[in-house]
């Protein structure tokens, strides 16, 4: 397949090959999907600590005067009241309120931010910011020179503290700090995409391989592929850009309203307010199958004999031992109600539920001791 010729590779590609990972294209990159097996890796992250190569994601640095740059208008995150050391999750929206991307903003200086975006959307996001930022604003795409490793799992703080010092344990959920690792000050945030206590580590590409090896030297740490990353995030009900959310879906439809700061102005706000008033046409629901059989992307959602929508994400849940999924429906359906998920001859009975599917995640543990 010639497709692989144009795929980007992370600095860890040789490490993944040494570990006999299954590799596959994701967001324009050749990425490890699994090492020992998705279920084993999934359970390892829920119980120990897993290391993810997330170098494919994009990072931008923006130095801007909020009064003049229009930056604040381009994201739903409230940048004005963000203290240094804070991270915030939010969106860039188009005029219709559709999601251009979901992102995390880091306040790294008095008037300086790092924006972390999805891999497949990095170039479009950068072009969008370039077009819409005004005045003497510095916008730099550091994605090519900077990499990211995620360390996730209940033991991740212990593991990381051994390398970066006890200050790691002082980090609160959705904050970050600068830590000395391998002779370099790097950003480590207490954030993640698994529902477990965990950290995201940002560093120059030339440090990635060294840190990868150092973290894997710890017996409590195993490498985890994107396959388990997907089952871990789905068990938490987290949306995946390009699959559950995109330019044609709004945060209201996706059930992500609580990540919007309504006290500020932002692109797409008028459309969202209008949608809020008239009621969103579609709503994201979550469902759990009554068997191990799993709903899949694009299966139909049937309720009381009516086709009411489409599955966007579906998988087997290793933690629950049954099929789980989410998707958009065009009518009101409440937790507890039955739906059927269908494609051709496959028909799966499921119950509507609230997220997260997995309720024992360690991500938001108060103070780590």
């Amino acid at each position: 397949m010639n497709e692989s010729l144009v795929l980007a590779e992370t600095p860890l590609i040789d490490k993944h090959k040494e570990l006999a990972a299954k590799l596959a294209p994701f967001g324009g990159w050749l990425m490890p999907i699994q090492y020992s097996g998705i279920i084993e890796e999934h359970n390892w992250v829920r119980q120990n600590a897993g290391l993810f190569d997330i170098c494919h994601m994009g990072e931008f640095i923006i130095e801007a005067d909020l009064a003049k740059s229009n930056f604040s208008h381009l994201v739903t995150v409230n940048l004005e009241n963000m203290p240094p050391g804070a991270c915030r999750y939010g969106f860039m929206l188009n005029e219709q309120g559709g999601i251009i991307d979901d992102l995390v903003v880091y306040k790294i200086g008095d008037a300086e931010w790092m924006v972390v975006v999805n891999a497949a959307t990095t170039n479009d996001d950068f072009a969008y910011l370039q077009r819409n930022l005004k005045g003497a604003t510095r916008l730099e795409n550091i994605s090519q020179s900077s990499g990211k490793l995620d360390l996730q799992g209940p033991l991740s703080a212990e593991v990381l503290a051994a390398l970066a010092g006890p200050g790691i344990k002082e980090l609160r959920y959705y904050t970050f700090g600068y830590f000395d690792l391998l002779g370099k000050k790097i950003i480590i945030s207490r954030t993640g995409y698994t529902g477990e206590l965990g950290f995201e580590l940002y560093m120059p590409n030339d440090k990635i391989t060294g840190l990868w090896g150092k973290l894997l030297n710890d017996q409590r740490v195993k490498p985890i592929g994107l396959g388990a990353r997907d089952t871990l995030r789905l068990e938490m009900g987290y949306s995946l850009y390009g699959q559950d959310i995109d330019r044609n879906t709004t945060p209201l439809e996706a059930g992500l309203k609580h990540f919007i700061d309504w006290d500020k102005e932002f692109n797409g706000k008028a459309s969202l307010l209008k949608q809020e008033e008239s009621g969103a046409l579609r709503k994201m629901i979550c469902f759990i199958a009554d068997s191990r059989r799993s709903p899949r992307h694009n299966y139909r959602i049937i309720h009381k004999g009516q086709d009411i929508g489409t599955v966007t994400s579906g998988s087997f849940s290793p933690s629950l031992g049954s099929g789980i999924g989410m998707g958009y429906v065009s009518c009101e359906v409440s937790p507890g109600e039955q739906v059927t998920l269908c494609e051709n001859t496959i028909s799966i009975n499921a119950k509507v539920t609230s997220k997260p599917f997995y309720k024992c995640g360690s991500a938001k543990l108060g103070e780590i001791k």
Partner: protein
Amino acid sequence: MTIPEDLLYTKDHEWVNIDADKATMGITDFAQNSLGDITFIDLPKIGIQVKQSEWCATVESVKAASDVYAPLSGEVLKVNTELSSHPEMVNKSAYEAGWFAVIKIADLTEKNKLMNFLQYKEYIESLSK
């Protein structure tokens, strides 16, 4: 990749073991390895007629659902009910504990369309090129 010498194979990675007028079938080591962790198996009902190269089961892994085709035509005599609670048996033992079904062979000449282990070995080598 294990490929037992005494079995016959399809291009869709099913194996079949012919014993007089009965055929035991399953999916190959190559298939289970490509699928990854198997989480659910929908087996045919006992007594139904399956046709060579047509649907006879569905295998689900964490990532996807895939159809399994009958290597030979005939009536389904037996299915491996253990797989409903332990689908991972197919990952652990594709050719033994992970068998899918026993079929009463309707037409033994159909086996001419199957590959022996050498042909199958060559076939999967050609796939990875």
